[in-house]
Structure formats: structure tokens, C-alpha cells
């Protein structure tokens, strides 16, 4: 900023601007402190429904489960393929004509 010497104003001329900026700094410090108080105090947190508590006699869960429960194994020897050969004389074609209705109606 050394080369701007000719433009340097007398600080008296800048007093109004400096005063306004100083006022802004004080206000911002106050509002910043209030904001931190609101944030850290939890005043801004949304209200969430309370989780149900333990009934008398119930014991507290010591910790969340860390493993999945084991699933019973399937019995061995289950068929895994469809049969590939059909018995002898098995009808291989669908009928091509419908049977006629009783009474001779077509």
C-alpha cells in the first residue's frame, strides 16, 4: 500500500467510516457470542420424541450386537436340477381341437 501515499486521507476524514466499522465489530462480537451460546446450549436443536424407557425389572442392553445371528443350514441332498428325460408314452403335444359341448351346440 506504499504507492498510494497521495491518496492517503487524513484520518480525521475517515473518522465516520472507522466509527461505523468499529460499531459493527462490537455488534458482531456480541451476536457471535450469543450464537455460540445458542448453538452449544442446544437451544436450536429440533425437538425429537423421547425414546421409551426401561420398565421395572428389565435389564439395560450392555451394547449393540456386533454380529448377525446364524441361520440354520438347509438339509443336504435337495434336488438342484429339473429332470431331463420324460417317461415313455408321455403326451408331447397339446390337443389341437376342443371337445364339442353336450347338446350338439357348436
Amino acid at each position, binding site marked *: *500500500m506504499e*504507492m*498510494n*501515499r*497521495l*491518496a*492517503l*486521507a487524513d*484520518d480525521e*476524514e*475517515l473518522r*465516520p*467510516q*472507522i466509527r*461505523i*466499522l*468499529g*460499531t*459493527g*465489530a462490537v*455488534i*458482531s*462480537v456480541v*451476536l*457471535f457470542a*450469543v*450464537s*455460540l451460546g*445458542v*448453538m*452449544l446450549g*442446544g*437451544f*436450536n*436443536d*429440533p425437538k*425429537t420424541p*423421547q*425414546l421409551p424407557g426401561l420398565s421395572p425389572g428389565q435389564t*439395560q*442392553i*450392555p*451394547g*449393540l450386537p456386533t454380529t448377525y445371528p446364524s441361520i440354520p443350514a438347509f438339509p443336504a441332498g435337495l434336488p438342484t436340477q429339473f429332470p431331463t428325460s420324460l417317461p415313455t408314452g408321455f403326451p408331447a403335444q397339446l390337443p389341437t381341437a376342443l371337445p364339442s359341448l353336450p347338446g350338439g351346440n357348436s
Partner: protein
Amino acid sequence: MTGDLARERAQLIMRVIIAGYLVEVLLNLMRPHVLPNEPALSIFQTLPGPAGSFTRLLSTPRAVFWCMIAGIAIGVMIQAYVAITRPQGRRAAVLTWAMLAVLLGPFTLISLVVIALYPLVALACVPSTAFALWLLRISQRFARLAWPVLLAAFAWGALLVFSLGRAYSGLGFGTLYGYTTGKISATDLSSFGTSMWRVLGLLIVHLSVVNELAVAAGVLLLLLLFRHRRIDTAKGLVLGAAIGLGYNFVESVIFIQIYGSLGSFLGATGGFEYWIRQSIGLFAGQVTFGALIGAGIGTAFQTRQRERRRLIAGAAIMTAIGGAVAAEILSGWLSHLVQGHVTSGGALDTLVVSPLLWLLPQAPFIVLAALLLAACWRARGAAARAAISAEAGDGGGAITWPEVPYLADPRLRLWTVAGTWHRHGRSAALALHRLQSAQLDLASWRWQQTTDPEQDPAAHEEGDVLRAKVIRLKTAAPTRLAVTS
């Protein structure tokens, strides 16, 4: 010499920006991992479904991140080359600006991605933003900044401040989240929610600090580039506000889009966001805080003592940071207080209550920015009178003594133009307006040259061109403009 200083300062600013980003990356890499299969950098974590678009608030696309890292690597190589070869003159300037483009260019992709993804929303924000930029320009009254300078400030805000804020805070969020939510109690899941709200609060502080420092860097850089001209509070204020306006533009696009898509979950709509960000609150938020920072740095430039300069600029930056944090947190708190007393989503809430709650914590800063602008107007008015009188005293004919009172007083200028329109028609009034504008440009040039006449010989030629323009306009329509004399 001026260019050298500006380049040195620009390099210093860039090094601070890049060093800060690398620190954020390092802290994020070292954070405790909360979830299984969490990526090394938290910014690579993606959420499924509609929540995915919500993460765009702070997201850095993977490709953009790697472009940033590549840009930093290339920038370092260019710096090493410059350090070894020590180029001089134009070659040194070209290498410096190329390095800055390579280092900062990839960061701007974050903003560009937002605009490219939602072009219609961006288009909807253009008219109000352009109007605000025009108001900023005419608010200077005298020695106005040229449009390219204002647009450069706007681009700094839109492309860099927004992107840097997201790039830093995206990493900061993951880091804070890792350190504060690492211990989730199995019997008290509400502690997780409490931790999350603390993280979001701290994230607002983090984002505000990064944003305001980036605004300050932009104002400082632009003022240094134009420091051969006179620098005053008004110039800084307008530059800062233009940077804030650019930031506000991209932020509006993302918020309007998100609330438009997820309004049923978030409680507001895209239309409401447009109303508060591009209408009633257009000059609030970052525009106000940018104006305060700019005014502070502009005032600091005029101050004699180095310590005092730092104090003034520091106070302005602190004001903006505190204001930005308060604007976010206290408006949310006030909203909680009135919840239940006002019907949410009704006409009264949409048009009055919600905007009021958002603007209330910012009100002191808006008032201070307005007071600063009024102080600038007074100072600029006195400067204009002195410069116009000095030009008339030279006797060159561009400004004559009878014209001085009219030119020095905006109301009299308007009155003469309106009177000319009434008596001689539109074309005569426009001709008079053009002449007065040219005369004010000449007076502005004269005021600017008192800064340092020897530093910029080209500026003297500019003065001759401006005088010739005034004489040409006067001789072109002497009879129509008789009303001024």
C-alpha cells in the same frame, strides 16, 4: 512496479488458499472413521436416493477433486520453473497469471457444475441479480467502477468464493463429524442427534470464516490491481458487495433447487427461497457482509499507519464473520421461538414472518452498510465538487464555471435533463445526459489522477481523450444544450 506488487500479493493469496485446502485434506484423511467402509476422504461418501441431491450443498464431485489436486501439482511445477529461471517482464506476468489460473481454475468447477445442472433456475436468478449489480454501479454516483471490474468482482464471488467455501467446508464437515460423533452410546441414541447438531453449528462457523476470508482476498486483489487509481471506502464497498452478489447468485440456485425438490421434507419451497434470496433479501446476507469487508479494506487503504490499516481491515472481516454466523444461527433460533404461534406456510408466514426472522439478526449490519454508503456519498460529493471546479479552473472549455453547480449536484443534473426533455424533446435530453456523463467521467479521471500522476502515463492520454469527447459532444449540439448555461 504496481503490476509486480499486485502479482506478488496475488501469489501470496493463492499460496495461502492452497495451503489451507491441503491442511483441510490432511485433517480429513486423519479423522476417525465412524461408519464401516467409509472412504478415505469424507467428500467421496454418497447418500442414496433423493438425499443425494441434498449433499450437493457441500459436495465436491470426485472428478473435480482430482482436477484440483492436478491443478495444485501443475501450479507447483510452474512455481518451481519460475524460481529456477527467474523470468522478467511480460514473461513473468504471463507465467504468474497462468499459475493462478491453473491453481484456482479447478475450484471454480464446483460453481460451474451447480449452474450447469440447474440452468433454468440460474436463468430465473439473472434478472434480479443484474438489477442489483446495476444498482451497485449507480450507487457510486461519481468515479464509478467500470463494468468489467464489477463483473470480475461478481465472478470472484460466484466462481471462487462459493467454490472455496464448499471445497473447504465439505472436508471440514467430514472432519468435525468424525471427531465429534465417534462415540455413539448404544443406550442413548439421542446423543448422536445432539452431536450432529453441534457439528452443523460448527460447520456454519467454518463456512462463514472461509467465505468471508475469500471475499476479503478478492477485494484486496482487485484493489491492488487498480491501485494506481484512487482507492476509497466507496470503491471497496461496491467491490465487496459485487463479490457477495456473485456468491448469492450461485447459492440461490442450489437452495432454490434443493428446496424445490425436497420441500416436503425441509419445510420450505423453491418459491420461498427465491422470494427471500432473490427478492426481499437480495441485498442482505453475503451482499451486506461483502460490502462491510470491502468498505473496511477500502478505508484501510487510505489510512497512514500500517497497524491501524490492519486493525480496520481485521475489524471489518471479523464483523462479517460474526454477522454471517449470527444470521444463520440466530434466525433459526428465532424461528424456533415463534414456532406454534404462527401458521407455518401461510401467507403471513411466507411474506412477512419468515423473511423478518431471517433478516432480523442481519438488520444491524444492513443499517451499518447503509450508513457507510451514506458516508461514502458525502465524501464522494465533496470530491466531485473539488474535481469539477478544478477542471473548470483549468479553462480548457470542457467544463465551464456556469456548469459547475449543475454537474456537482445530482438533483440539479436530473432537473436540467427533465427540463430539456420537457422543452426540447427526448433527443436533446439524451444529448445533454451524454454530455453530463462525459463531463463527470472527465472529473472522475481528474480525481483519480491525484493518487499518483507519475505511475500511469497512459492515464494522462486517457484524460485528453475524455476532454476531446466532451468538446465533441458540446460542438455537436450547442443549441440543444443551452439550457445548462
